[in-house]
């Protein structure tokens, strides 16, 4: 009986489990996590570049994991290693092309409107983190190109006083930034970005009819 009372009391007051469950449940409006219909204005190629960026990012992560399994001697000498290495490079190129086109599209339609500031900011952070990830990738090729880039970059990074803990002349440190820390950062911030897009909905064009009142009410307090 004591146990039952304690359980009921905890449920009424709430604990971290109920708090987390409530937060997860209310993270996006009901039915908006994976919607199968979109507003009419989304029927435009300009809205495709966001999900194209995610598709390219998945290809980057998969080919990167494959390269990590094979190792430098594999990707430098074997035909399959060359192929996967090239897939990693070109999926990265496509990731940046799609991400920049997505950025242009969202910038010119002022995608931070309608309480979407945090969505915009997380996109900016994802872009900057991706640049850092690509940079450490160039430093992790284990070839003369990587050596050249690192010696060119060291002076600039030392000039802004971060060379002591982000040392581009340390290949092992750069490799770990590239395969552990920065992919985690990019993956997490992209996840938050996508959740925020689902939470607030896709931004309408500037001249389109604004969200209906019920959507605005649903967005109250969602940041």
């Amino acid at each position, binding site marked *: 009986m004591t146990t039952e009372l304690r359980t009921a009391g905890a449920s009424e007051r709430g604990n971290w489990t109920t708090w987390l469950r409530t937060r997860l449940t209310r993270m996006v409006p009901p039915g908006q996590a994976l919607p199968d*219909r979109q507003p009419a204005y989304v029927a*435009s190629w300009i809205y*495709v570049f966001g999900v194209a960026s995610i598709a390219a990012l998945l290809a980057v992560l998969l080919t990167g994991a494959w390269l990590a399994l094979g190792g430098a001697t594999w990707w430098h000498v074997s035909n399959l290693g060359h192929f996967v290495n090239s897939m990693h490079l070109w999926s990265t190129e496509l990731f940046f092309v799609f991400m*920049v086109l997505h950025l242009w599209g969202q910038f010119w339609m002022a995608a931070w409107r309608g309480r979407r500031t945090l969505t915009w900011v997380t996109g900016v952070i994802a872009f900057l983190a991706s640049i850092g990830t690509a940079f450490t990738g160039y430093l992790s090729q284990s070839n003369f190109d990587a050596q050249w880039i690192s010696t060119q970059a060291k002076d600039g990074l030392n000039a802004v006083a971060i060379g002591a803990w982000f040392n581009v002349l340390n290949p092992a440190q750069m490799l770990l930034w590239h395969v552990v820390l920065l992919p985690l950062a990019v993956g997490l911030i992209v996840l938050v970005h996508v959740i925020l897009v689902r939470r607030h909905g896709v931004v309408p064009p500037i001249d389109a009819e604004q969200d*209906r009142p019920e959507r605005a009410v649903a967005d109250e307090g969602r940041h």
Partner: protein
Amino acid sequence: MTTFSTVLAAAPSGHYVQWGVISISVTNLAIIGGMLVLFVLALLVPFPRGPHDRSGGGEQR
């Protein structure tokens, strides 16, 4: 006999476009030009509609 590595070592470092303080490789310039073309096409080319789409478009929120 010319080996592959010799060809690579002798390969030119690429052509560059110089315009005042701006210096950019032709390859990068072509990529940026291609991105601009793709962006304009995305704005102008009509998006295909599926057979189940309503005439007025999708869900209105």
